[in-house]
Structure formats: C-alpha cells, structure tokens
C-alpha cells in the first residue's frame, strides 16, 4: 500500500470529520420526532434549509480548489453550480415555510418576528442573495476582480455567521450535538478557505 504523507493523512482526517458531521446532522434530522407532526410541505422546508447548510460547507472549499480529485478550474464550476443550488434551496426553504404559516414568514421577512433566529436567518438569506447578485452583475457593473472578490467574500461571511446563529437558536430537526458539529464545520471550512485565499493573493 502506498504510504501517505503527513499532509495527505491530515487532509484525509479532515475530510472524514466533515463527512461525519454531515452524516450525523442528516441522520439525526431524518430521525427527528418532530417530523411526524409536520406536513410534507413543512418537512420540505426543513430539509431544504438543512440541504443549503450542508452545501455551504463545500462552497468555500470549492472556491479555493480544496475539493479532492478536481482541478482548480473544475472546482470553480462546482462552486458555481453549488451556489445556484444554495440560492434555490433557500428560496424553497422560505417559500415552503410561507405555505406552512404565512404570518410567521411575513414577520420574519419584515424583521418583526418574536424569534431572534428568524432575524438571523433572513439576514443570512439576503447575504446569500447578495453574494449571488454581485456575481451575476460582475460583468455588467464592470467590477474589478478584486472588488468583486472582496464583496463576495464579505457577503458569504455574513451569510455563514447568520446561518450559524439561526441554527444554534432554533429548536428544530437537527439534534444538539450534531448541530454544534456541523456549525463548527461550516465556520471552520470558511476560515480555512479564507486563510488559503489570503496566502494566494
């Protein structure tokens, strides 16, 4: 068997940790007792949110070429498609919650919700939309690469922070320990990618 270098071993351990955190979060949410008291549309809303959260782990990694087995260029393509998927899942999450309970979602969108986590969630949503929008408009607004890049990174950082607080405060499908693990992974992958990006530029 081929001997792994220390760096390769380290990367393997990190990837296994990421995979376990995701599997743990998906498993506990799929087995959550709360599911039995939710309509299919509310279940869809719940899992769309969790799906977006999971994809947010891969977004910074694919942006800086950390996805194993893919070239930097292929990584960028993955990043683009995952980005579209995150935006779509957020829209499904909010839309399906709207169908479940319109007044609660209207309160959240207007930032007058009684629950703190809705405010963080809606903030994260706008940051995600903003990050996508500056990318779509990059050419037409003739942003310099650096300006766009800084804006995009600032917006996704806000999105990650908002998402983590949103999840931490919610009494939802993901079990507490799994919730902490996946939040650590989401923040960790963003930070590692930010460091990597800084070294490169």
């Amino acid at each position, binding site marked *: 068997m081929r001997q792994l270098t220390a760096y390769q071993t380290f990367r393997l351990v990190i990837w296994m940790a990421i995979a376990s955190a995701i599997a743990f979060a998906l498993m506990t949410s799929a087995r959550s007792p709360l599911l039995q008291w939710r*309509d299919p549309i509310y279940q869809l809303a719940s899992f769309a949110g969790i799906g977006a959260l999971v994809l947010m782990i891969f977004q910074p990694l694919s942006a800086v070429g950390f996805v194993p087995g893919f070239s930097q260029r292929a990584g960028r393509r993955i990043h683009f498609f995952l980005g579209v998927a995150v935006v779509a899942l957020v829209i499904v999450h909010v839309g399906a919650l709207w169908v479940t*309970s319109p007044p*609660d979602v209207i309160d959240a969108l207007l930032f007058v919700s*009684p*629950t703190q*986590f*809705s405010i963080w969630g809606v903030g994260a949503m706008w940051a995600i939309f903003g990050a996508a929008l500056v990318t779509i408009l990059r050419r037409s607004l003739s942003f310099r690469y650096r300006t766009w890049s800084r804006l995009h990174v600032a917006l996704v950082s806000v999105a990650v922070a908002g998402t983590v607080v949103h999840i931490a405060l919610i*009494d939802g499908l993901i079990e507490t320990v799994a919730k902490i693990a996946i939040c650590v992974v989401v923040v960790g992958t963003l930070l590692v990618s930010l460091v990597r990006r800084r070294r490169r530029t």
Partner: protein
Amino acid sequence: MKNPVLSRRHMLAAAGGIVVASSSRLTVPAQAAGLAPTRTMRGGANNYRPGAPIVDRIGGGGFTMTGRVRRAGDGMLLSGQRIQMWAHTTEGHERDADSHGATLTDANGEFTMDMPQIVPAFGQAHGHLAYDSGEFKTVFLRPVMASSRDTSLHVEFVLEPA
C-alpha cells in the same frame, strides 16, 4: 466655610438614592395606578381565527393550558371571560381549525384547557392565546415553553377596559 445643608456627602447620598430608586423600580409611574395591563406579544395573533368555538377540550388533550384573567388597575379577578387558544400540537398545525378552541374563566378568574401536546414549530415550542370579546381591549399572547417537554403552560391576562 462648610455648607451644612449641601455637603458633598449629602450630594453623593442623594445621587446614590436616585440611582437605587430608579433601578429598583421604587418609582414606576405606570404602576402607580395599580396593576399594568398585559401587552400583546409580537406574533401573538399569527394564525388567529376569530370566533373559535367554546369546547371542553381541544382534540384528545394531554397538555394543560392554564391562566388567570384580572382587570388592570385594581387587579379584580374577571369571571366569565372568553379566552381562545391555538398551537402547533401533535394533532395539527396552528392554521388548522381543529387546533383552535376557547373556554371561559371561572369565578376565580381562572381557566384550564386540556389540549394536545404542544410541539416545537417555527423553531420554538409555543402557544397562542387571545382575549377578543370587546369589553376589554384585545390582547394576543405568544408564551414560549421553557422546555419542549413541558406538559403545561400558564399565562396571565391583565385586561384594560376598551
């Protein structure tokens, strides 16, 4: 010469007294007239259905919603007041008609409703209650359970004449 009436010590004591009084609610104008009315909570009216019927229990029961209704000012217990409640429970969503029911307060101004177990929805295990009969100002409450495993919830209504 030293001023015997307004020494620094007196000033400090007076200032300290003001700080203590203001922070310890010794002087709260709103309470000077007695019991303050309960304010409608944010999101309290969400999924409200006017005119929910008076029922013995909502669904199969198992969870106890209790409360007390008093009049603002003198704190008199109010009997015969209609209180309506709804929640996301093991038996239905907030918007479902079957999740809604009302009851009347007894001679002690208290009410009890047997309803299905409240479960977390929209991130929090919470209930909704309303006083909407018109004699007093309408109040919507949205109490949150300390733990989603709680099997009861208690609320206080202090109503203000309309």
